[in-house]
């Protein structure tokens, strides 16, 4: 076979027939793929046209992405005389099926493995046929972002597919993505003025037969173009450029770099952020005590870094303490405004420290003034000797500074002296909160409510008495069935009310009420009708009697 030249594998006729028989419309695409691959691997002849028609027929039935990818691979084994253009068009269709994730990644929803297999198959077929694959440059970049996004793989097949994709992207006839890697962090300084870059392909193989050019370098802060159209020089495996030759100010710069040398290069225009660092120097450091009444002229002492000022300075209710300084770039002499310019005052006895920010004025001179009456809250009014430190720092500074400048004796007005300065310990258990249950409402004493209950029931007795006195006649009570039913029904309804209060809800009550009410209504209707009849009869008889007497 091709790869293992020393290894002889004999294929029996039966196996060969089996493989050839597998290439038909009845086998799945995977089976055709494996059969064609095996036959091709063993160097056995196969009918490309038949295989092609079987493939095309199968592909129209199996629409999955994996089947299409396997078709691409299979086609790359077939003879170039066959018309493979329909299979080549599948590459474009597959590209359309990729999912765009945030404009950064391009992958199939089936995952990275499928995407990597697609890349390998597409380039293999394109190389075989000689047609550039219908994948655009930014699509290739996004495919690479997706395929090479993981460093740990769960399955061996996934790792294999990614390796295959890397191999096919490093060696094919059409698209070669370029990777530019800076040597170490992309930073230059006076000690290290040269920016070194390495150019590799996807398999991290170093390319030196290329030309690297700086298209332009722009300062991030000032947006000014510092450098243009400068080639990098090859030194060993690296491409170098001495950036400090143009004496750039410290800060960040956007480099646009292009790599040329082969028409197949893609992704060969790179943006790189380069940091230029420098060293800072503190100059014109003046410490002074300024009298608040401005009656005495301020006493100024100049200190040179890194020495410490002799003697101590005082700040109290009469005098303020002031500090001013300038920061310059040691190499260029330009004024600097680093991100961190702090003045730290450390109480030697209590260990307290207070940090202030020194701000630059319009001429980039940093000033700090300590007024004891304004700042007493920060100090907790703790008087004493404080050591003054100056802290300067920035990402672009190679020499951050912590400088003990002087000692300052700060005196706060006596009445504000704190009891003892206790370090605030935030992580002490706090007092426990007892949950207050909602207290039940106060009710009147039992005696009162009992009395009142009796009182309220008394009118009932009164009512009964009155009724008896009036002589409400129960004698008129006829024991007709409807009457009994009516009264029973009515009583039942009242009983239902009681049950409703204790147990039932509205729906159940309404249900029972409907039943009882219906019965009561019918019975009552009957009863009242009978009464009405009796009444009308009585009225008529009395009217008749009156009529008769009149006559």
């Amino acid at each position, binding site marked *: 076979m091709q790869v293992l030249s020393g290894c002889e594998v004999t294929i029996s006729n039966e196996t060969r027939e089996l493989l050839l028989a597998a290439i038909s419309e009845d086998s799945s695409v995977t089976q055709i793929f494996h059969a064609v691959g095996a036959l091709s691997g063993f160097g056995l002849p196969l009918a490309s046209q038949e295989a092609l028609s079987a493939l095309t027929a199968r592909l129209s039935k199996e629409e999955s992405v994996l089947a299409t990818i396997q078709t691409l691979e299979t086609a790359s084994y077939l003879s170039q005389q066959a018309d493979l253009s329909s299979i080549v068009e599948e590459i474009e269709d597959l590209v359309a099926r990729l999912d765009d994730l945030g404009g950064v990644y391009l992958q199939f929803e089936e995952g990275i493995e499928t995407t990597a297999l697609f890349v390998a198959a597409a380039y293999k077929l394109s190389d075989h046929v000689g047609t550039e694959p219908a994948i655009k440059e930014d699509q290739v970049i996004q495919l690479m972002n997706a395929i090479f996004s993981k460093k740990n793989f769960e399955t061996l097949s996934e790792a294999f597919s990614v390796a295959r994709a890397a191999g096919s992207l490093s060696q094919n006839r059409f698209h070669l993505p370029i990777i530019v890697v800076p040597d170490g962090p992309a930073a230059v300084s006076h000690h290290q003025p040269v920016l070194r870059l390495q150019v590799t392909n996807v398999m991290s193989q170093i390319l030196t037969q290329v030309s690297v050019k700086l298209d332009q370098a722009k300062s991030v802060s000032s947006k000014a173009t510092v450098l243009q159209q400068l080639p990098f020089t090859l030194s060993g495996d690296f491409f170098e450029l001495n950036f400090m030759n143009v004496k750039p100010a410290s800060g960040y710069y956007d480099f646009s770099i292009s790599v040329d040398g082969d028409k197949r290069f893609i992704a060969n225009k790179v943006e790189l952020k380069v940091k230029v660092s420098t060293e800072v120097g503190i100059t014109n450091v003046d410490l002074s005590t300024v009298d608040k009444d401005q009656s005495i002229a301020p006493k100024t002492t100049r200190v040179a870094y890194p020495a410490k000022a002799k003697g101590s300075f005082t700040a109290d209710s009469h005098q303020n303490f002031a500090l001013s300084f300038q920061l310059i770039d040691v190499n260029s002499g330009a004024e600097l405004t680093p991100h961190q310019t702090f003045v730290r005052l450390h109480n030697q006895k209590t260990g307290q420290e207070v940090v202030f920010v020194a701000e630059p004025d319009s001429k980039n001179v940093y000033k700090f003034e300590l007024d004891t009456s304004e700042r007493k809250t920060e100090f907790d009014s703790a008087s004493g000797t404080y050591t003054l430190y100056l802290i300067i720092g920035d990402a672009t500074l190679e020499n951050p500074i912590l400088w003990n400048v002087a000692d300052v004796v700060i005196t706060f007005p006596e009445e504000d002296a704190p009891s003892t300065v206790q370090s605030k310990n935030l992580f002490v258990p706090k007092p426990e909160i007892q949950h207050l249950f909602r207290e039940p*409402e*106060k*009710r*009147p004493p039992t005696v*009162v409510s009992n009395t*009142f209950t009796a*009182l*309220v029931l008394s*009118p*009932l007795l*009164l*009512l009964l008495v*009155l*009724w008896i006195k*009036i*002589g*409400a*006649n129960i004698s008129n009570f006829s024991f007709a069935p409807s009457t009994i039913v009516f009264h029973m029904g*009515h009583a039942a*309804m*009242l009983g239902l*009310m009681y049950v*409703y*209060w*204790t147990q039932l809800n*509205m729906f159940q*009550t309404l249900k029972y*009420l409907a039943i009882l*009410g219906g019965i009561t*209504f019918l019975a*009552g*209707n009957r009863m*009242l*009708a009978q*009464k*009405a009849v009796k*009444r009308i009869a009585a009225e008529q008889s009395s009217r008749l009697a009156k009529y008769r007497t009149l006559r």
Partner: protein
Amino acid sequence: DEACVAVFFRRFLALQQHHLRALDAFLLYVLLTGALQFGYCLGVGRLCFPLWLPPVLTGGSLFLCSAVCLRIQINPQNKSEFQGISPERAFADFLFANTILHLVVINFVG
């Protein structure tokens, strides 16, 4: 007005019919009960408000149903105004209104 009250009482005492008298006794009972409960609530304070409301509502409504509606309709002297409604019908209406009233009150209480 003095005269008005006097006329009212004379008319009231002149009533002979048992029905009306019994009804009036009932009305008096309802009134007294309601008044007593109101007084109790005033005496004890605000916290009995939810308990106080049902009695007041019941009392008031009963009073209304009985006195105003039933009594007027039953009174033969007012017969001219209520041609279509017989006393029995009035009584039935009274019962129906009562039922609904009790339903609502029990719902509120429970």
